[in-house]
């Protein structure tokens, strides 16, 4: 594995203010993520993992500290710079798929190919998630697992450098969840896409190169898996 660093975060802090109450979501988080790495962020609710993912994905800005992606400084970037960053470099997969209900599978994926410069072939992206036969279906005609696979196809079709997945199996049953993880794992392996997956399911940690455990807004422990296991071997 190459040791080229894509993400560098140092001293990240995030404080949310709601009314008079201050909630500290992240405190002094520093980490580096290398190209092609598969990272799993583990932690209970409120541990700060989503906040960290959102900051890495350019969806949120830290209250303190610094974060860079390659040579882009994300802290202090303008709204339009962050939009361009997400558009060109980041693929997102979310717990609730966030598909556009009025578009078919193919059209949902095409939505992204329309706005990026060097996308993957549309049908190849759909084939990678195994939905060739469902390409003309609308989201409402698909199962949850199928919808999540469309979301993955949509995320990878732009050939992103980073794939950020927030609880991708959270809304799926066991078998479907494994299927989705398999797709994510293949994307990471075949396309060498740096992948960060958030989960509170510790069993998934086995797939990762490194597992970052968060708690109370801090990194509590970072573990490196000497031997990754395939999604098929996972069980929970």
């Amino acid at each position, binding site marked *: 594995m190459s040791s080229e660093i894509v993400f560098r975060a140092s001293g990240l802090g995030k404080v949310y203010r709601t009314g008079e109450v201050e909630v500290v979501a992240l405190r002094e988080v520093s980490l580096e993520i290398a190209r092609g790495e598969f990272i799993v962020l583990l932690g209970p609710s409120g541990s700060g993992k989503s906040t960290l993912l959102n900051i890495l994905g350019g*969806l949120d800005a830290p209250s303190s500290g610094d974060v860079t992606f390659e040579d882009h400084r994300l802290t202090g970037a303008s709204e339009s710079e962050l939009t361009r960053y997400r558009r060109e470099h980041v693929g997102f997969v979310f717990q609730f798929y*966030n598909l556009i209900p009025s578009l078919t599978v193919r059209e949902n994926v095409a*939505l992204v190919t329309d706005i990026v410069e060097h996308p993957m072939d549309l049908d190849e992206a759909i084939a990678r998630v195994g939905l060739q036969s469902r390409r003309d279906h609308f989201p409402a005609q698909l199962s949850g697992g199928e919808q999540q696979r469309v979301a993955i196809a949509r995320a990878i079709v732009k050939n992103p450098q980073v794939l950020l997945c927030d609880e991708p199996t959270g809304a799926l049953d066991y078998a479907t969840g494994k299927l989705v993880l398999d797709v994510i794992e293949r994307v990471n392996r075949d396309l060498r896409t740096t992948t960060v997956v958030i989960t509170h399911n510790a069993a998934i940690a086995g797939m990762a190169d490194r597992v970052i455990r968060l708690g109370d807004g801090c990194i509590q422990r970072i573990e490196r898996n000497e031997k990754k296991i395939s999604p098929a071997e996972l069980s929970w």
Partner: protein
Amino acid sequence: MWSQSLTIALVVASGVGGFLTTLSAVDSLALARDHYYSQGRFADVFAVVKRAPDALVDSLRTIPGVADVQTTTEMPVRVEIEGLSDPIVGQIIGLDRRRPQRLNLVSLREGRAEVASMSPGPIRPDGALPAWVSESFAAAHGLKSGARLSALVNGRRRALEMAGVALSPEYIFAGLWGMPDQRGFGVFWVDHEALAAAYDMEGAFNRVAVKLAPGADQRAVIDSLQRRLAPYGGREAYGRADQVSHSMLQNEIKEQHVLGTVLPSIFLAVAAFLLNVVVSRLVVTQREQIAALKALGYPDRTIAGHFLKMVLAIVSLGLALGLALGDVLGLMFTRIYAEFFRFPSFEHYVAPSPVLISLAMTVGTAVLGTLSAIGATVRLAPAEAMRPPAPARYRRTLLERLGVTRISTSLRMILRNMERRPIRTGLSIGGIASAVAIMVMGNFFRDAIEFIVDTQFRLVMRSDVALWTFEVVPDRARLELLRLPGVKSVESNRFVPVTLVNGHRRERTVIRGYASVPELYRIIDVDWREILPAGEGLVLTDRLAEKLGLRAGDVVQAEVLEGRPRTLNLVVDATVREMMGLNAYMKREALNRALAEGDISTGFVLSLDAGAEPALLAATRQLPHVAGAFSKANMIRNMQEVTARNIRLMSTILTLFASVIAIGVVYNGARIALSERTWELASLRVLGFTRAEVSGLLLGEMAISIAVAIPVGMVLGYGLVHLIAVLLRSDQFAFPVVILPRTYALAAICVMAAGLGSALVVRRRIDGLDMVAALKTRE
């Protein structure tokens, strides 16, 4: 939510305001009319006779159905104000010092009356005739008591000394030929004796006013009256419907009633739709709370009541604003009316009934809009209501199913969203289209007036000046006129009042005898084609022919209402579609032949060299036979002075109201779409769509709705104008359906501006979308 509530409240306010403005103004007008008619003992039937002896009055009183009779002597005169070359037509009316007025009571507004006699008083030692002057004329010329005017009384110039300002129920509206002309027409009440002496009318009268007994048959009274007046040169007898001032008043009331009912209905329908959409969305977002309340045991009624209270608060605000607006605008309209229609007392009056109707309509609108929106949700079982609603189902658009596939993804999303809710999309488009239609209608009146002026004063009346004589004159008088300075050409006319009779149908009109090939006074139809009186027969306005049941080729009887009673049998040669009047045309020579009276005329139309008008008008004052003159340029100026301003005011108000609708529909539509699709739009922002791209998706839907609504609204506007024209159509007048391109363009621009304004506000909200929140919830 407050901005949406406000826009809905404003739409309600526009509806209620429009309703109350017109109806309160019209109610005030009708109330002032009724009050003045009864206080001023306004007559029911009017008759004109050449010269009948006072002794005949007793005989007239015995006509069955007659409650009271008043006779007067009245004469049309030419009036001059020093330093003013405009021709002025005056109606000079004698008031008898010895006999109190019985009908059409003249009320003195300011000035002096001969004590206990109610007359301006006898001739002054210097020969001046004291006169009370009609209020609108005095006001238009700024005349004060003591002012001197001169009038051509029976060929002799007499000084009139203004002794006061007066009003009469007969002249509430003052103008010539139904056109408002307060400068060019005035009424002058003078002492009867002096007037009678000047016209050799001592012991005689030439006007009769009749008050009918309750339940009397007006038609029968008119017939008897005509029969008894015939030997004395009875000319015409008619009811209130044909009395100029009354019919103008009635037309105005009818017109405003139509506008005041049709337009507010559109506003309230749009308000009902908006309430429905907004409440539906609110119900969807509060679905879980509703379910929780139901689970806790709240009855459906209480839950529905909660939403109803909220909606009623919105419409109450609208109602309150509307009532205030209606009161202010109604007062403004009443003041404008007060310039046209003169009453001794004319107050703005808001009757309880339009207020109660407004209340009922707005509450009805609210209840209807709300109940239809919350019905389905309230009926759901609590457990079911607690689950999120089933995901929206989409399909390919009609366009795609028809094979059009080269559509961009964003356009596809927009079209599929619109097609998924066809009723809402349709109503949105309908709402915006109705705004366009109202704007088209608001500005149509300006187009119509311009068209009428253009038709009447450029195409029909190509002459500059018209003159008419006291009595018929030999046509050679035309040659005399030709010799006057600046006269280019002269055409003679002969006008004869008649009653046209076909079987049991009768219509009073004037046969207008024109030159064989008229150049200066022509017959032009609504499509601006010239109609020439061809043979020896008549050309009738289509409405007149319709009323009489006549078609080209039929024969009609014409009972002549002047001179010796006679009946002519005339052939209807053709009919003509005209905007104004119930007219009958003939060649003057043919008319003279039919009457066997030789080559005579009653009027002349003249075309003049540029700038020659003042000199020509001055010269005609020296001609003893000329009873009056009419200047086209003055008429247009006097008419436009008032009319143009009022039409502009009305167009502005309607345009503003329509903009409120447009903003209400567009803004609410966009806000609802935003609230429904926040999740989707935020997801797109996460994927890297820029703010502009995301806004384009949402506002694109709005743009398409507006783009579709504008042509639909134009067609609707055309239809609405047609409807209004039909509803306003009277015997005397058919509004031309003429809409100029600028009116369509203005409506389109206003709606686009309303759309753009709404878009800017919504765009700010799109920019503030919370992406992170969208990822954490499931739509």
